[in-house]
């Protein structure tokens, strides 16, 4: 593979989305068109799912102005996935979050990002002889066509010091997601209490699918100090947990 990557960046869904391509179409017009298709698709997804746009289907659903049966099919698909995510995480992942003193509010953002990025990456899978790594706000999905090829090298940010990467994940094809403290925007919320989850540390999950890596990372972070033990017990994916004191624990499920 060509050592030089093609790189693209755009601000989408309120976060930077970044693409690295390597191989035949890494730096040519076909690669550029595939990127344009990714951008278009993510813009469409944002129009439907944004919790910041009062006219989005999700906001109208939340306000009771839209019946689920009339909602776009993709909304039902995402809510079905969300229900499965809640089940497999024993309730530690939820898109229905307790509001401040009020009823639960619909916020599928935690699932939509992974779902949308993975879906948009289909445009990149069409590029023959080309590997991709597509990242959105610190979570990513990647593919390598040839098993003998060099894996993508994913750096895991040190939550105590974003100046450092404290781990490297060589990933041929799959997804990697990290949940951590957020100075801005919504915190990871404990779906039971509605309170922001723990302070400090982070949870990184690596697996075949970005969507499920993201779900488990969010659930693990929401779980709090017990995240490492809990994930090792119930999560079928590879996990890296940085505790608030900085200690790192990794776990891989039995093959």
């Amino acid at each position, binding site marked *: 593979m060509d050592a030089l990557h093609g790189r693209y*960046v755009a601000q989408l869904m309120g976060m930077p989305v970044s693409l690295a391509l390597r191989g035949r179409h890494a730096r040519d017009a076909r690669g550029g068109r595939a990127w344009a298709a990714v951008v278009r698709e993510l813009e469409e997804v944002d129009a439907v799912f944004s919790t910041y746009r009062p006219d989005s289907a999700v906001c109208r659903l939340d306000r009771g102005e839209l019946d689920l049966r009339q909602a776009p099919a993709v909304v039902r698909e995402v809510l079905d996935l969300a229900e499965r995510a809640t089940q497999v995480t024993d309730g530690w992942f939820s898109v229905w979050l307790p509001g401040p003193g009020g009823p639960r509010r619909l916020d599928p953002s935690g699932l939509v990002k992974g779902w949308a990025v993975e879906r948009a990456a289909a445009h990149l899978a069409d590029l023959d002889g080309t590997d991709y790594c597509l990242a959105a706000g610190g979570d990513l999905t990647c593919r390598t066509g040839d098993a003998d090829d060099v894996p993508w090298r994913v750096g895991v940010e040190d939550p105590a010091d974003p100046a450092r990467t404290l781990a490297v994940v060589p990933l041929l*094809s799959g997804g990697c997601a990290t949940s951590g403290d957020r100075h801005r925007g*919504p915190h990871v919320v404990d779906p039971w209490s509605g309170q922001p989850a723990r302070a400090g540390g982070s949870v990184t999950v690596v697996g075949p699918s970005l969507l499920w890596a993201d779900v488990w990372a969010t659930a693990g972070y929401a779980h709090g100090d017990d995240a490492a033990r809990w994930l090792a017990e119930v999560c079928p994916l590879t996990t890296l947990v940085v505790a608030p004191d900085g200690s790192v624990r990794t776990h891989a499920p039995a093959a």
Partner: protein
Amino acid sequence: MRRIVLFLSGTVTVVTLLFGYHTSTAGGLYQAAVAVDSSSSTAATSGNTATGGTSSGSAGTSGSAGGSGGDSSSTRTVTGPTVQTQWGPVQVQLTVSGGTITDVSVLQHPSGNSMDQQINDYALPILVQSTLDAQSSQVDMVSGATVTSMGYLQSLQAALDSAGI
């Protein structure tokens, strides 16, 4: 223009290959192994990580890395594309000498209210080191970065690509 001193010594030493495994799920090939830096930090300040979720800012500039790898013995500057973050544009410039980055300048950084400014003051300088660390450990992407820093990182990463580094 804002200049930042570089720290070239902060190389990440990857020491342990902890585990690796394969699984054959639909969609195919999956291989994961995690190597942890032996000197990982012990301090626990709160993180500075990405804003999740879907939000309003969707208009963006897309930049692609231009140029190709050049002569590694000369000194030259490479400018990354302007990357839009929700707090404003970020753009960086590298000086490369003999294949090594000798300086990084932030040509544009978001300026807004004082809160944004604080975050920028905090986020941008340390990311210079982050990127050098990332470069030295040959990282293609970072999982867990801030939104501001991602914009910065990507501009810088694109500049790195342009420089053929």
